[in-house]
């Protein structure tokens, strides 16, 4: 099926997200606007206005009731998905680089930027899932990252841990109740920025993408690196697909970082790797700038990518995608069937 092009943003996309049912895609961009789209036909169903600066991040709660956003205007905001009503604004001294709900939607974390005398922090708020409710001003947790600037973070299974990725290529594991640092691991090359962290559906493992041109899967409880996917371009994003054992990686050299700027040399493709064997199995072209974010449909039926070129491209997977199996996978399936 041909991809659907969502052209409503005027500047580079920074994050795209499916809601849990996969029927809506939320996108944020440097153009200050949050957009919501129907994933099946690309029709825009709404926009959320209010932010006064570039947007870096968006997340939707597990019931598709509340939307969280954060950006360069130093605010984190909570919106009602259905009406577009702004429910809450939290102010900070620096910009918000990442927001993420816990699996139950009862907690929301924000990663604040390190700048001009302010260390990077991870803040957590208890969320009342009722859109009519008054949301709290009080942080239930505030982690100050003194060693290295955090760039991304999220909640593990049962919100036991907060896992954060950092500017220096390390990943930290924090006790999500006490904020105590439990463990720090050099998951990526030293001093290579971690650009993305996305969870497996059950949040027992996650994938990180880095400027070191690799994406890696690590276990949430041990931080052991289980898989490494090696590419030839700096990565901005990595996603784990449900249903099939694949990962999707996105990146590319920004035009200002290379002397030659053709799309070919920029490597503006979504790359598919087999999750377990860590071998590349395919690429999808389309964007004419780096891919800033890739997101997978929660039911595994497609994916979308947000590009530096200002477009979101929505892809629905075809039959060959689902049929593809390595011989040893076929064997395994056969053995299972015989049991």
């Amino acid at each position, binding site marked *: 099926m041909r991809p659907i092009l969502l052209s409503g943003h005027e500047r580079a996309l920074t994050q795209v997200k499916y809601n*849990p049912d996969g029927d809506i895609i939320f996108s944020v961009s440097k153009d200050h606007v949050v957009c919501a789209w129907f994933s099946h036909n690309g029709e825009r169903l709404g926009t959320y206005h209010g932010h006064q600066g570039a947007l870096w991040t968006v997340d939707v709660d*597990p*019931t598709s009731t509340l939307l969280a956003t954060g950006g360069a205007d130093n605010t984190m905001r909570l919106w009602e998905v259905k009406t577009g009503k702004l429910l809450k604004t939290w102010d900070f001294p620096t910009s918000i680089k990442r927001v993420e709900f816990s*699996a*139950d*939607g009862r907690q929301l974390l924000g990663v604040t930027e390190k700048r001009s005398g302010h260390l990077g922090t991870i803040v957590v708020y208890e969320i009342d899932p009722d859109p009519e409710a008054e949301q709290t001003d009080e942080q239930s947790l505030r982690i100050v990252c003194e060693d290295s600037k955090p760039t991304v973070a999220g909640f593990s*299974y*049962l919100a036991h841990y907060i896992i954060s990725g950092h500017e220096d290529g390390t990943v930290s594991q924090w006790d999500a109740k006490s904020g105590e640092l439990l463990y720090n691991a050099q998951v990526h090359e030293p001093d290579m920025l971690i650009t993305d962290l996305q*969870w497996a*559906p*059950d*949040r*027992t*493992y996650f994938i990180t993408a880095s400027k070191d041109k690799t994406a890696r899967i690590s*276990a949430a409880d041990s931080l052991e690196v*289980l898989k490494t996917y090696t590419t030839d371009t700096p990565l901005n994003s990595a996603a784990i697909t*449900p249903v099939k054992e694949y990962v999707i990686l996105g990146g590319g050299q920004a035009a200002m970082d290379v002397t030659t700027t053709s799309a070919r040399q920029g490597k503006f493709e979504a790359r598919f790797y087999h999750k*377990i*064997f860590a071998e590349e199995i395919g690429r999808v072209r389309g964007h004419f700038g780096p891919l800033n974010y890739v997101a997978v449909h*929660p039911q595994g039926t497609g994916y979308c990518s947000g590009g530096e070129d200002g477009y979101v491209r929505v892809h629905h997977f075809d039959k060959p995608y689902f049929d593809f199996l*390595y*011989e*040893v*996978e076929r*064997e*395994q399936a056969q053995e299972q069937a015989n049991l």
Partner: protein
Amino acid sequence: QDQAKKNTADKAVIEARRRLLQEWLAWRESMVRMLEEEGAVIELNGGKIPSEEDEGAEEIE
């Protein structure tokens, strides 16, 4: 002879994949057991909060 070498190489690749697959599946199984012990309902439902309809469907089974 080249063909024989190639076959040996292919065999080694397939053996390695078989091992990777077994390791992965065993680790996944241990994670699912851990989530079951912890009562991680949302996580075991693929990250979705189970709806009452889902629960109803389970009872019918």
